């Protein structure tokens, strides 16, 4: 009878850690605004060919450096191209650079950091010294040097940024593995006869994912600025293909006569980077409640 009474009481279902983190994230207004802006830019990049009012490469000698009008909302550039269309198409280069370069950093940095932290010994020593050496070169200087030797192009800029950002992920993954591998559940996994590979991939790796996601989100923001910087210096996306950085490089020569050329690509970089920073901060708070 008593057992039946207990069975009738509807207990609320306990939320999984992932669901709790998602709820915390949804409560962070800054992170949600950041996410909305990121989604907006992703939509711009995907649907650029439908949204952009003009061909971003089409020149018009009758519309050189025209101030914003109803026909050209953001004005035109030094050879009569529509700035709005170029800003919309430039979203592709920036987002692609952010995602691909951080993808490269993750693909190299996390397994190497996992290896260093889990295996330890001389492997860890060697990897740590190489990581220190890479971290000793300021991020942008290393990216410039790599892009210089690889040759100027968007692909090479993404590779350069990805390689330059890798040591931060190696160090993070290694530190997390060192903290996780002394936990009781790892000891238990070893005691029941799991192989090292299985322990590293099935038990250690899932527990280092949260800080890696946070770092990756913030790294995308840094990569977007880095791509814009390399393109500004002429080492990224090559003209005439649109990129926010190369648009600013051209715009700096026309600040006096056509200031609108400099405004919108910069605003776009600022908004996209700010959004990834807000999202990264929100994810950090949501995934690591101790941080708040």
């Amino acid at each position, binding site marked *: 009878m008593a057992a039946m009474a207990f069975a009738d009481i509807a207990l609320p279902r306990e939320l999984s850690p992932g669901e709790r983190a998602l709820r915390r994230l949804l409560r962070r207004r800054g992170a949600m605004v950041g996410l909305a802006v990121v989604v907006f830019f992703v939509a711009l990049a995907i649907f650029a060919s439908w949204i952009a009012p003009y061909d971003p490469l089409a020149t018009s000698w009758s519309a050189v450096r025209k101030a914003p009008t109803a026909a050209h909302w953001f004005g035109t550039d030094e050879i009569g191209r529509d700035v709005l269309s170029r800003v919309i198409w430039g979203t592709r280069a920036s987002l692609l650079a952010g995602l691909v370069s951080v993808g490269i950093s993750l693909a190299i940095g996390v397994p190497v950091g996992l290896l260093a932290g889990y295996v330890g010994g001389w492997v860890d020593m060697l990897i740590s010294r190489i990581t220190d050496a890479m971290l000793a070169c*300021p991020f942008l200087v290393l990216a*410039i040097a790599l892009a210089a030797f690889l040759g100027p192009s968007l692909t090479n800029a993404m590779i350069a940024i990805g390689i330059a950002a890798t040591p931060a992920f190696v160090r993070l993954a290694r530190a997390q593995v060192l903290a996780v591998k002394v936990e009781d559940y790892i000891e238990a996994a070893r005691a029941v006869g799991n192989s090292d590979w299985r322990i590293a991939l099935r038990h250690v790796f899932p527990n280092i994912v949260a800080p890696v996601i946070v770092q990756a989100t913030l790294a995308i923001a840094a990569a977007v600025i880095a791509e814009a910087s390399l393109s*500004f210096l*002429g080492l990224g996306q090559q003209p005439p293909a649109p990129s926010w950085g190369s648009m600013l490089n051209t715009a700096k020569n026309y*600040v006096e006569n056509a200031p609108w050329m400099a405004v919108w690509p910069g605003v776009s970089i600022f908004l996209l980077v700010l959004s990834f920073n807000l999202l990264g901060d929100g994810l950090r708070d949501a995934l690591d409640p101790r941080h708040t």
Partner: protein
Amino acid sequence: MSFILRRLGAIVPTLFFVSVMIFGLQQLLPGDPAIAMAGEERDPNVVAYLRGKFHLDEPLPVRYGYWLKGVVQGDLGESVRIQRPVTELILEKLPITLELAGIAMAIALVIGIGAGIVSAVYKDTWIDYVANVFALWGLSTPNFWLGILLILLFAVKLGWLPASGYVSPFEDLGENLRSMILPAFVLGNALAAVLMRHTRSAMLQVLSSDYVRTARAKGLDERVVILRHALRNALIPVVTLTALQLGELLSGAVLTEQVFSIPGFGKLIVDAVFNRDYSVVQGVVLFTASAYIVLNLLADVAYVLINPRMRA
């Protein structure tokens, strides 16, 4: 002392790997490095000269040995374009960038630490909110864009400051400062944001500690509590961070110097990249990395010196 010696010992392998990495950059050049370095003309005499000069017919480890021997003796190679030693070029351009970085650092310290203190003291008020917005702005604004906007406002619209160029302080100190204010502010902007965030978080931690509560309980003036008791301890991690950020300033200077046409260290590497002057690129990266490693060491030593608990 033993700590310093241990730290000195640890930088040797790091410097070794830095040298290997920077030497390895040359291997990324597609095709024959001598042809790539010879430029568009590909003059066979120049190619042969470069092949002999860089020992390109020798095995890789031997080439690295030759290169490292030169580096240890302060010989970073020679600029292929302007036929001058790379070390000489770096030493010529470095003071300009150091001046820019020094003024930028001063601006960042005043704004960043000031905003950090105010933000912590007035936590959760509109002042704190504004300071946090400022930090997010600083961290998210590309400095080359900020530079263009400031040129537009202060040089083009208002005409108060020069848009670009550099005047040596030995020629005209006033003009030198006028030409440095905008680039230094642009360079210091992001650093100010980083310093603000760290100062705020360190101050919040210190302000909730027992000794600050004791200082308040014994009736000390709030200004004395904040400036003499809280700030002195909160600044310890900020000092370390500041030293480390000098390396980032050198990095940021690359873009700032490009926007404001300042003939410094950053412009040297960009010009070298476009002139395919790879010895200069390697030299600048090696110098920057070495400077960063030394600054890192100094930051650690400073941390021990100013933190009595670390000396025990």
